[in-house]
């Protein structure tokens, strides 16, 4: 059974973190901390040298992870290892297509099968997805659809026709970690999407605090939120003190679990 098919009906929390950040061994501790709070979904970012859809914070985390020479195989091993102690949280990988292509699509799927419930391929649009989607479907891994404010309804209808897992609604036109949130527009678009699909619609990009999470919950019909950059930002705020970082992560996740 795919965990993404058993998500709660409301207030879904999805947390993103870059694999291998700040180092491979510290990364395990970061993920242990996150998973101990049993978020509904965890998104594992695989570091890429040229993350063109990510903002400065996630870029920096990728760069730091790559500096300690983490490989795709090491990231996948880490994810598999974490899976053993985590039964409740749905596992999702978020990465760029070149990482998967270079690993070999078949090999990659073989590695993540029975570990990962879904995958977000940031730079694989609907038009190019067919062959990969078929392979993922066969292995019960959901290809998560991103929808942006630029996606018109005609297009989102096509995109969501066979969508599974959840919809990742990009709440601001921009890169991950962007600033402005316009709740009225978000709600309008979320409502339109909910008419087109039965799977949960999650709002991501620009959600930074408990206040943002509460506001999304109160002002929109979104089924949940995705938080990424804000989790990583703390590390830099705390001048890269790892012990303090873990404590602050704990506090932050408790706050945003509403």
């Amino acid at each position, binding site marked *: 059974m795919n965990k993404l098919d058993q998500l709660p009906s409301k207030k879904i929390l999805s947390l993103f973190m870059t694999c291998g950040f700040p180092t491979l061994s510290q990364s395990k501790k970061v993920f242990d901390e996150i998973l101990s709070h049993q978020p509904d979904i965890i998104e594992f970012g695989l570091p*890429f*040298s*040229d*993350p*063109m*859809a990510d*903002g400065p914070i996630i*870029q920096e985390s990728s*760069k730091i992870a*790559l500096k300690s020479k983490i*490989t*795709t195989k090491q990231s996948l091993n880490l994810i598999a290892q974490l899976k053993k102690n985590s039964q409740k949280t749905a596992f999702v990988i978020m990465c*760029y*297509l*070149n*990482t998967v*292509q*270079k*690993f070999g699509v078949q090999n990659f799927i073989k590695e993540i099968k029975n570990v990962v419930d879904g995958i977000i391929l*940031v*730079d*694989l*649009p*609907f*038009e*190019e997805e067919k062959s990969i989607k078929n392979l993922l479907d066969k292995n019960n891994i959901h290809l998560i*659809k*991103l*929808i*942006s*404010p*630029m*996606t*018109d309804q005609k*297009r989102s209808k096509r*995109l969501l026709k066979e969508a599974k897992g959840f919809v990742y609604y*990009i709440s601001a*036109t*921009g*890169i991950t970690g*962007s600033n402005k949130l316009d709740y009225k527009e978000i709600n309008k678009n979320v409502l339109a999407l909910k008419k087109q699909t039965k799977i949960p619609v999650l709002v991501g990009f620009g959600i930074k605090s408990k206040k943002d999470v509460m506001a999304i919950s109160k002002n929109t019909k979104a089924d949940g939120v995705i938080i990424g950059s804000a989790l990583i930002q703390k590390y830099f705020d705390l001048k890269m003190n790892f012990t303090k970082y873990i404590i602050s992560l704990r506090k932050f996740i408790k706050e945003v679990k509403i």
Partner: protein
Amino acid sequence: MKNYNQPNTLGRFGDYGGMYVSETLMPLLIDLDQSYQKIQKDKKFQKELKDLFKNYVGRPSALHHAKNLSAYLNGPKVYFKRDELNHTGAHKINNCLGQILLAKKMGKTRIIAETGAGQHGVATATVCALFGLPCHIYMGSKDIERQKPNVFRMKLLGANIIPVESGSKSLKDAMNEALRDWIKNVRDTFYIIGSTAGPHPYPKMVRDFQSVIGKEAREQILKIEKKLPDYLIACVGGGSNAMGLFYPFLNEKKVQIIGVEAAGKGPKTNQTAATMTSGTPGILHGSYSYVLQDNDGQIKEAHSISAGLDYPGVGPEHSYLKDIKRAKYYGVTDKEALNAFQLCSKLEGIIPALEPSHALAYLIKAFKNKAKGKTIILNLCGRGDKDLFTAAKAIGFDADE
């Protein structure tokens, strides 16, 4: 070869090309593709572009018989397609005029671009000044340092230059930042990509706008020599000047086509930009093509003395032409390019940019005492003014004031 008809409607040159971007950009690219298709049939648009080519750029660019260089080679008869005589000093302006007219047509009010050597940045800043649109140029801080004259040019033209500090601080990273800017400012912004790289429809569109080079060259050589050339030679970074020259000749199978990449310190070293000689197929900047990457698919930093060729990717159409063996690609080192830079200056009285100096270096290397009676067109796609400081430093001449 049958009639060449690439790319397909999804922007595929064989397996290469495509659109690998986030969903935020997809609706824009689809819109851009449709608008581009429309203007191709729009007579008014084409007339306006033709007029600008003639009266603003100074086209057609001359086809110069390089007699002294030909005599030195004791081989083929060499012609230079002199796109370095264009307004702004390189071929880049051809594409920028096409794209800014399209941007106007689409009602866009803000222009962004990436630049390496600064030639595309200068060309973009120029057309923005001409059309009165705000212009933001992303440029790696390493390139800002080594292309100071062009930085000043862009500033004079009213452009805002945004230094890029990420990655290798050169062209690849400037393109990442420009794409991020575009994702953030989707509604009002037009991204003028300067090479035949990036997601569809850019590789096709840039090729088409640049193909004025090949069309003119074809007419000119037929008039002078009464026959087609035996060889075409051009340098390849992303590959726009080369595609511009090659494209109108692709169906002429007797015309041999040679692309010259920058091999930096050598194709087998880690300091190279020879993507097709040293790279493997992968995805960079929205397109599937040869790239310099490690075993994990992380993009490597490129190296070349020429900022315009210092790019770890290459346009998808070149990857296709390589695989179907319609064109051959070779690498030339920094040192060889510098020698050719000096030789061309002395022999022909033309100081070439470091980019076409790579094409010249290959010509000198491969055609000395060979191919007698054959004719070659080499695309002299840029002039060397911008490279004087870099070249002086490399040669050991103190050019500081």
